[in-house]
């Protein structure tokens, strides 16, 4: 069976690994990618920008041969898919046939960069998604003193920290009144604000970029909606992505802000599957279609998709927002529903200790964990994550916000439960 995968990132890696471990022998695997270096990790690009990692160290996966077969990597840009002929079309005219197709084409920044003249962007304004963006930023840094990061989400803040580490003056401009408005609640984001502010990063909240000023064709300043102006020789956009589906326009594959897939990762066209940032799939907590663009979700989807590509029915349990980050040595983790505005008639338990910067929060709905925040001390976050995913009934939510309580939970029933049911096999077989 000839399986073609579009993309060489998180979802693709997880699918390749699963296909190779599946025990199915007669697989001819072809991976088509426009990345020059397949399987470099976008999540750790900020570490690369800051100089902590070499380009070589960005590579998180190397294709291996399995059962005497080595997957083929084709470097090229996919411009179309023709389901009636079971063919993928490339920009250079090549056509690649498939028996099963798995689309892992990810997402791209949704903001369009400003243009100086048609087709030419202003020198000094960049995206923050691909390695080419980092090359560009690094290039510009030599004659940059002040940077503006547009977007105070997790990716924007990671970028701000990297630029600050490189000795630049950084101002983060964020649309909402709270930093990390999807990743953290007010308390957690205040902690992050204080840490980063102490490091010398400036913040402008509840404001957006309105215009750009240039000097000799290079960015020199930013005009904000509020009327304020900032000096900036570099502006980095880190605000939201949209799925890479342009090349599917005439394919007949159903798209609605992402490729629509069922619980088995299959599109409306038989034999064509999708996984990762490019999909619109079920949310674990709401059961509604959602576009979750996270590494953890991409790898889970890639795995589930791979089994279904092989005809082994595995159901996707649903996507869950969760993330982890460290700022100045303080670890932060959040998962599920935690934002103050989303918590309505739910039970909330919190613990906060200013001195050691320890914060925990648990949100219960109908006796089940639907959200959690850990800061400062992240022990047992994985256990809570598992309780959330398995929708287990919780008797006493208060225990989940103290270390001794978490130890109690672990000791009393968790380890035993885990050993009896192989819960790590998250995707129920049908």
């Amino acid at each position: 069976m000839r399986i073609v995968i579009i993309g060489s990132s998180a979802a693709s890696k997880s699918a390749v690994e699963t296909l190779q471990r599946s025990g199915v022998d007669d697989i001819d695997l072809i991976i088509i990618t426009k990345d020059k270096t397949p399987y470099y990790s976008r999540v750790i690009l900020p570490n690369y920008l800051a100089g902590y990692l070499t380009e070589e160290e960005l590579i998180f996966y190397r294709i291996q041969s399995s059962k005497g077969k080595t997957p083929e990597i084709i470097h090229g840009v996919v411009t179309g898919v023709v389901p009636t002929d079971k063919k993928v079309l490339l920009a250079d005219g090549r056509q690649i046939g498939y028996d099963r197709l798995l689309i892992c084409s990810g997402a791209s920044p949704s903001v369009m960069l400003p243009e100086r003249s048609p087709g030419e962007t202003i020198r000094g304004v960049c995206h923050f998604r691909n390695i080419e963006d980092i090359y560009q930023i690094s290039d510009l840094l030599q004659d940059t003193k002040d940077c503006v990061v547009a977007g105070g989400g997790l990716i924007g803040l990671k970028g701000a920290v990297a630029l600050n580490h490189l000795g630049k003056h950084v101002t983060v401009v964020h649309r909402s009144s709270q930093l990390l408005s999807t990743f953290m609640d007010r308390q957690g984001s205040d902690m992050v604000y204080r840490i980063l502010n102490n490091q010398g990063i400036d913040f402008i909240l509840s404001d957006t970029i309105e215009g750009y000023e240039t000097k000799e064709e290079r960015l020199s300043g930013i005009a904000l909606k509020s009327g304020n102006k900032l000096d900036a020789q570099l502006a980095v956009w880190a605000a939201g992505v949209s799925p890479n589906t342009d090349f599917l326009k005439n394919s007949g594959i159903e798209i609605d802000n992402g490729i629509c897939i069922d619980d088995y990762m299959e599109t409306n066209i038989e034999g064509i599957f999708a996984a990762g940032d490019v999909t619109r799939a079920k949310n674990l907590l709401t059961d509604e279609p959602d576009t979750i663009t996270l590494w953890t979700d991409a790898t889970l989807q890639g795995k589930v998709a791979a089994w279904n590509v092989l005809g082994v029915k595995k159901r996707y349990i649903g996507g869950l927002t969760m993330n982890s980050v460290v700022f100045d040595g303080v670890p932060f983790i959040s998962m599920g529903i935690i934002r103050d505005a989303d918590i309505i008639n739910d039970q909330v338990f919190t613990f906060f200790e200013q001195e050691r910067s320890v914060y925990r929060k648990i949100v219960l709905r109908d006796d089940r964990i639907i959200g959690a925040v850990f800061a400062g001390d992240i022990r047992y976050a994985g256990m809570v994550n598992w309780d959330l995913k398995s929708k287990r009934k919780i008797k006493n939510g208060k225990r989940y916000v103290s270390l001794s309580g978490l130890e109690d939970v672990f000791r009393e029933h968790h380890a035993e439960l885990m050993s009896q049911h192989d819960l790590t096999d998250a995707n129920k077989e049908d």
Partner: protein
Amino acid sequence: MGREKYVFINKTLCTGCGDCTLACSFEKEGLFQPVKSRIHIVEGDLAGFTPQICRNCEDAPCLDACPAGAILRREGSGSIYLDEAKCVECNMCIMVCPFNAISRGDGTNLKCDTCDGETPCVKSCKLGAIVLVDPDRDSKQKRRKMLKMLWQE
């Protein structure tokens, strides 16, 4: 050395003495410091002591979550190890490990890697609570049963 094996700790035999945590931290870091150990013991009262160590999950969530490619599966035994040189300390693995088997270190996160089969923790346990088990990786069913046996209540 023979075939690669996993480290398993029999909870019912564990008295929480902590010898294995000292042996582990000395092997890995040259220090007798339980916080540096890849095994941790949760102290207990009536419920007993609960050792925390990696279970080498068949469908390892930590491996899927790691964005740096620092968590890998060994050929052969299928055991899961953490490549400390690649770890960027992002804690994604801690966020998803149900067994609290990964801890934060200094420069890298820490997790049991079965010491290539030469395991000081096994020798250190006077009660024989720590054993090396031969995973029959082709039969998941068997493995589940084995897990059940080792964790019997």
